[in-house]
């Protein structure tokens, strides 16, 4: 009996760190996932995001300092759909933490179950630019996908830390209730500009557009990853003029000089439009992201509204 107890104790000691230290250590690839993880995990988790919201998530450097974070993580959460393909694989291969590898309990691909748009059908190749072959990875910009992500995170946290299952479920309930309330506000705000045509720099906002009735009619990038040529800029100017497109939405990590010139030529309003939590100092949480972005559009289109 004593031997059995000893064996049980030893096996518990050898188990993942959460059984010893208390807080689950979560590493996410983006601040959006970090924000939702914090909402569900609260005091029971420590969350770090490798990429900052003001950074282009396609072009994060695979710095060795990330290996220190990954080495201690109990759970890694990724956006997936090859958003992180340019930097995450060598970190995972060299991270020396088998708990968080794909297929293991400590790995979560947040895209599972979400509404993914723009999945290519038929043959694709790089004449289409740096295309995402599994669909557009900026899916967190639909609050309903945020709900699905939150549920997935809750289930995963409950699996890894069953002692705090009730806490995670209560937090999820609170998150979903707040999300439902905020969605009413957001949809009311969005009704004021329903169907507005916009041009974005990169193809970051199809889910946002679908959720809030915005029509994205073109991009400053002619193709993903390809900077605009003079002829494309001229096309944009002509399109803005002929279709009276009122807004240019530019992600904060792109150089706004050229879009500013387009805006000056055409009279369209240019908005620095964060697609991620942390993309602006005012955007500290997942809820802030939609508050900020929707009020920005509303303010720009309302007479006397001042774009930032």
């Amino acid at each position, binding site marked *: 009996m004593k031997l059995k107890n000893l064996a049980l104790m030893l096996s518990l000691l050898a188990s993942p760190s959460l059984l010893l230290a208390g807080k689950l250590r979560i590493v996410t690839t983006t601040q959006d996932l970090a924000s939702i993880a914090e909402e569900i995990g609260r005091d029971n988790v420590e969350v770090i995001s490798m990429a900052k919201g003001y950074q282009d998530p396609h072009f994060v450097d695979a710095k060795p*300092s990330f*290996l220190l974070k990954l080495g201690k993580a109990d759970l890694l959460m990724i956006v997936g759909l090859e958003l992180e393909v340019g930097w995450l694989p060598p970190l995972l291969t060299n991270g020396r933490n088998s708990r968080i590898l794909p297929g293991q309990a400590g790995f979560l691909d947040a895209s599972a179950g979400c509404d993914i748009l723009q999945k290519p059908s*038929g043959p694709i190749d790089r004449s289409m630019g740096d295309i995402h072959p599994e669909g557009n990875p900026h899916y967190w910009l639909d609050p309903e996908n945020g709900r699905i992500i939150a549920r997935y995170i809750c289930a995963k946290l409950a699996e890894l830390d069953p002692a705090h299952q009730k806490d995670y479920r209560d937090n999820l309930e609170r998150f979903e209730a707040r999300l439902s309330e905020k969605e009413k506000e957001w949809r009311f705000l969005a009704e004021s500009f329903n169907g507005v045509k916009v041009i974005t720099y990169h193809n970051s906002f199809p889910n946002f557009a679908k959720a809030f009735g915005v029509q994205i009619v073109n991009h400053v990038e002619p193709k993903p990853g*390809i900077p605009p040529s003079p002829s494309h800029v001229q096309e944009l100017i002509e399109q803005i003029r002929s279709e009276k497109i009122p807004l240019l939405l530019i992600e904060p990590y792109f150089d706004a000089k050229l879009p500013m010139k387009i805006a000056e030529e055409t009279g369209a309003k240019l908005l620095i439009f964060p697609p991620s939590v942390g993309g602006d100092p005012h955007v500290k949480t997942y809820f802030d992201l939609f508050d900020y972005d929707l009020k920005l559009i509303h303010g720009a289109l309302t007479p006397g509204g001042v774009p930032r």
Partner: protein
Amino acid sequence: MRIKFLSVLIFLFVISKFSFGQNQLPGTSAQAPSAGYGPQGGSGSGAMQASNVLNPNISAIGWFQAEAGHRHPGPGDANERDDAFQMKEAELAFQSIVDPWTRADFFVSVTPDNVDLEEGYLTFFRLPAALGLKIGKFKTNFGRFNRIHTPETPFADRPLAQQNYFGEEGLNGPGGSLSWLIPNPWLYMNLDAEVIAAPAGSDNPSFSRANSKDVLYVGRLSGYYDLTEAWNVAVGGNCSYGPAGENFDPVGNSSSTLHTRLYGIDVTFRWKNIRRAIYRSFLWSTEILWSNHDATSSPVDSHGMFSYIDYQFAQRWHAGVRCDYSQFPTDGSKHEEGGLAYLTFFPSEFSQFSLQGRHVQRDDGASENLGFLKSTFNIGPHGAHPF
């Protein structure tokens, strides 16, 4: 005659039943292959062949280079072609997870002169105690630059010190590499301990096996620190010990193995404003190595170094300069030195065109001035961005 006629009929009947053309199977439509899975009940069922889903990532890098000027080669690049145009290399990569514990990476180099396995190794990524293990043929971790394949460097050539001490292919070979991420709360620190089969013949200027089972050892202690959000520094200390051929004593009718000891340090500073990551970046990297090489009379001390700066001044443009100084493993009294400058345009992440000029002052006083146009182009799945 009837038997022959019947035989032909039977033959035609059999052929029609077992044809590999675009016959329709019940419940399917004959259509061109799509990007997704095959039609239900077709080859996707595994009946005729396995699914393609588990195929490795296959990619290729093409390296085309034009050259102008007259070569006056040194020992390190004596075997290099000086054609006006060369398809210098096509590097084929096959990379995939092998099983829940390992992944395999193969890099096959196809050049005008041969087809070579440049690297092919199995990596164990689920070892305990922050260990990593690699077995196979690989470029060793002596310094930072040695591991980088030439098409993926900013240069049309390899630095003089790399050529003169490691040869055209760098310090590489079949063996094993054990890596340990040293646990500490302050900075990334990693220790590599590697052993590879010693090169044969004159493949490598520093090392040469005296016996078939000779091996050489490489050790590296590296560290990395984020100075600020934009600035970071990586440093490394390197050492290597291995055979450098055989010394035959005709008087005593005996032979002994000569050895080379290499020591090196490397420092790399990087800057990138992560809010504008695709537009501006800066890198300054310096590597110095010292060699103590047994010769028949007495050991030869020599050294070499290179230092280069790469500056990205626009989204698709880089410019850089490199300075080289190198003695020779067998002769520390001679040296060659030079420099290289380049301007590179990247139409996309997947191709580049680089105009480069190189000047080298050889040890015999001769001067060599060459111009290059280097172009590389990649196909295949999106690889990791180099860091």
